[in-house]
């Protein structure tokens, strides 16, 4: 315990102590800077994504002479023939996303309502981990399921459907985004204060009235946020749609046709030879930028809504 003995009054002892303190202070500053560096990496990542996507897209628009209006309004996507209209890819993405939302929203909201309002604690504690398994299944597995399990059923029902089609992709993507809808919606439903429910029961409302006319409206903005996050997931979903949707860029509303999404196009181009610096190399960055901007906007809106919800009940 000699470090704890009081310092002698000799000057060398004081020097020793102040030297020690200085050294420690310097160490503290270095560690602080190191940790800060780690945190800054996240900012650098974002800046890196934005700069890279913008830089390559700018080259695409400036060097390759593709006009932004052609990119945003052109109706043919055929980079090998110099036709760069992103609408077919955008349309494919929307078809899959809307289909996935139609599958996931009612199922997800219903499950969330059941878990938060009706289920006993035992049921809730067994079903929630079971549904979390769904969230842990990799996207490429859903792609396999779409091709091997779901597409044959669709083909049996509608014999004139393309072998790989938007409907199969939409169904599996719907299942992939279910966990997002369920867990977030359940959280916001449970955050609705008990007193609101009790007040409604006191007025003689049935469980249905309380749930549908009081609890769900009170949690509505949070539910919307969970939908937005799920939709953003569906837009960015890649491996499942690449395998399941076929890969033909076209503008159609028919879910039984083969389509291509923005993400699937990136995969298709990246799989072939994409030598650095060609137009085709740059198209994937222009498509990536479109993808990044659309998901980023949805995420920001959803987070803004969730943040406001949290304030309201605290």
């Amino acid at each position, binding site marked *: 315990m000699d470090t704890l003995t009081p310092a002698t009054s000799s000057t060398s002892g004081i020097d020793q102590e102040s030297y020690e303190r200085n050294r420690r202070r310097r*160490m*503290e500053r270095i*560690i*602080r800077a*190191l*940790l*800060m*560096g*780690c*945190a800054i990496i*996240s*900012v650098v*990542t974002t800046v890196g*994504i934005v700069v*890279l996507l913008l830089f*390559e897209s700018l080259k695409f628009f400036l060097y390759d002479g593709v006009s932004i209006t052609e990119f945003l309004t052109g109706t043919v996507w055929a980079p090998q023939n110099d036709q760069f209209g992103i609408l077919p890819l955008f349309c494919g993405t929307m078809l899959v996303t809307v289909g996935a939302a139609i599958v996931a929203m009612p*199922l*997800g909201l*219903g*499950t969330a309502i*059941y878990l938060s309002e*009706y289920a006993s604690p035992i049921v809730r504690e067994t079903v929630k981990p*079971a*549904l979390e398994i*769904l969230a*842990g*299944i*990799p996207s*490429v*597995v859903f*792609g*396999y*399921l779409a*091709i*091997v399990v779901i597409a044959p059923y669709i083909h049996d029902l509608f014999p004139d459907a393309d072998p790989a089609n938007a409907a199969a992709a939409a169904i599996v993507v719907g*299942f992939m985004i*279910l966990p997002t809808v*369920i867990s977030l919606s359940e959280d916001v439903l449970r955050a609705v204060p008990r007193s609101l429910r009790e007040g409604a029961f006191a007025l003689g409302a*049935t*469980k*249905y*009235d309380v749930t549908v006319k009081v609890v769900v409206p009170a949690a509505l903005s949070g539910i919307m946020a969970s939908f937005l996050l799920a939709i953003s*997931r569906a837009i*960015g979903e*890649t*491996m499942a749609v690449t*395998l399941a949707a076929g890969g033909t860029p076209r503008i159609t509303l028919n879910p039984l046709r083969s389509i291509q999404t923005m993400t699937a196009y*990136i*995969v298709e181009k*990246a799989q072939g030879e*994409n030598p*650095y610096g060609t137009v085709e190399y740059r198209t994937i*960055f222009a498509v*990536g930028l479109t*993808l*990044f901007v659309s*998901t*980023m906007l949805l*995420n920001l809106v959803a*987070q803004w809504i969730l943040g406001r919800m949290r304030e309201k009940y605290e």
Partner: protein
Amino acid sequence: MMYTEKELANMASFRVRQRFVSSMFRVLCMGAMWCCLIILAFLLFSVLVRGLQHVDWSFLTGLISRDPEKAGIWVYLISSLWLILLTTLFSIPIGVGAALYLEEYAADTRWKRLVQLNIANLAGVPSIVYGLLGLGLFVWAAQLGRSILAGSLTLTLVILPIVILASQEALRAVPNSIRQASYALGATRWQTTWRQVLPAATPGIMTGVILSISRALGEAAPLVAMGAVQYMNYAPVSVNDSFTALPLAIFQWAGEAKREFHELSAAAIIVLLVVLISLNMIAAYVRHHFGKRVQW
């Protein structure tokens, strides 16, 4: 106030109808839940049925082949192992360091809130966009080529936001009294953080890290976007070798027309899911076992 007989009957039938609607709604919601569970079970079952007979030793140690009888996943397994090892090595210090800075050091300023918002948003960026970042930054700008190193750096960026958010959560759960007691004894901030806060938060951090690793293990999109090799016939031996990954085996075989390859794909899915479920069970065990010991 008196009701006529007709009014009473009306009220009674209204009550009955109300009760009927209420119970129907309950059944509907329960149906939605069962629908999710049954379809989940059905999907997993259909993978098992198709793939189980192919999972054996020769499948695990087989090389890539055009003959479905001989093809195996050895190269994919070893490559995935490399990627996960390096990704873990990179993401733990950076992720935990960033979380420590945000929770223990940074004051609650606008700058901190901006970083926090940024991390939350990065967690929602589609993983294929990270693949483009890896392609532009690591493969071309840093001249790493399509190597294991470039692949694992990209995967690190993909899971970093999740590691940071989970570690922050774990650090936040450590009660302030522990920090104050340490400061009262004259410890510096780093001594407090390193000797008191970090050990107390370790189970929570480990749970988060294991779950992120299992996410990285299943990722295929960023690797494909970087141009991962799908027909590699040798297992990588250094960080500069080209890479592939187990999910890419599933992707490749699922895209083949022949039925035999679909069964191989299912077998590879079973292997991947077994690894993922084991990782999740380890995470649950860590949370349960070590979480119990420390009680505040």
